[in-house]
């Protein structure tokens, strides 16, 4: 991409999770923005989760539902007072439904600079068996 094609980033407020269930934990929960793409062999998910450390991050895959959770600890020190706040911090939560069967043993997750890269390899499909009909 050349410089002339680079667009300017627009400010966006984080989207809060709208949950029908009551939250049991204090503070807001946000939906991380994500890219999802697929190849023949795997599904890859990239999610922006600034402030999440790998020890506070959790992936859960049950049947076809993938759940991402990341806790963010308030970065402010004890002696600090706010002058102004344009963004809020809190946990991240998002669920995805996967259409393919994932090989759970080969899932790979990396969290670098607040970006999650999750690789979900698909289970190799067995070649369809050809059935020959014998005339009886």
């Amino acid at each position, binding site marked *: 991409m050349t410089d002339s094609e680079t667009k300017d980033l627009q400010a966006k407020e984080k989207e809060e999770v709208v949950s029908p269930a009551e939250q049991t934990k204090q503070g807001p929960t946000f939906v991380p923005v994500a890219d999802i793409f697929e190849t023949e062999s795997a599904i890859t998910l990239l999610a*922006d989760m*600034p402030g999440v450390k790998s020890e506070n991050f959790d992936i859960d895959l049950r049947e076809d539902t993938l759940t991402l959770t990341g806790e963010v600890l308030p970065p402010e020190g004890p002696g600090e007072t706010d002058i102004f706040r344009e963004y809020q911090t809190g946990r991240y939560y998002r669920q995805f439904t996967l259409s393919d069967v994932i090989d759970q043993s080969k899932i790979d997750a990396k969290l670098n*600079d607040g970006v999650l890269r999750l690789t979900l390899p698909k289970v190799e499909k067995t070649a369809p068996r050809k059935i020959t009909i014998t005339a009886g």
Partner: protein
Amino acid sequence: MIVRRMFNTPAWGWRSPFGELERMKNQVDRLFEGYHKGLSGRQQSAGVFPLINVSEDKDAYRVRTELPGMKADDLDISATADSLAISGERKIAPEDEEVKYHRRERESGKFSRMIKLSGQIDPSKVEAGIADGILTVVLPKSESAKPRQIKIG
């Protein structure tokens, strides 16, 4: 008498044709006054990327912003005695061409933001660090701007 009551025209409306306009203007002014008060009461963002939080303690101002995936090299930060400028470009590395996207919500692009600080700082002592996608800039207050305990002698 009954007919006159049915067409009950307010007398003041005719006595001063501008009276009604004046009243409407006052109402509109009040409406906007309330609106502006509402905005300052809530924390309204400037709507410029990146969104920032500013805090202070007795020694320094701290400016934080969320820049996931960005490294120190992608950023340009400069400070004067009372302002801070942050600019850079967020790049998202392209994936293989044969991939099929289901969602593309993450955005790349350039940005530039300048903020004015409410007090004087020492630009030579400004420090910045980026960790887990969060940029923190520590701007130590200049000696003259620090609160000082006054002893009563």
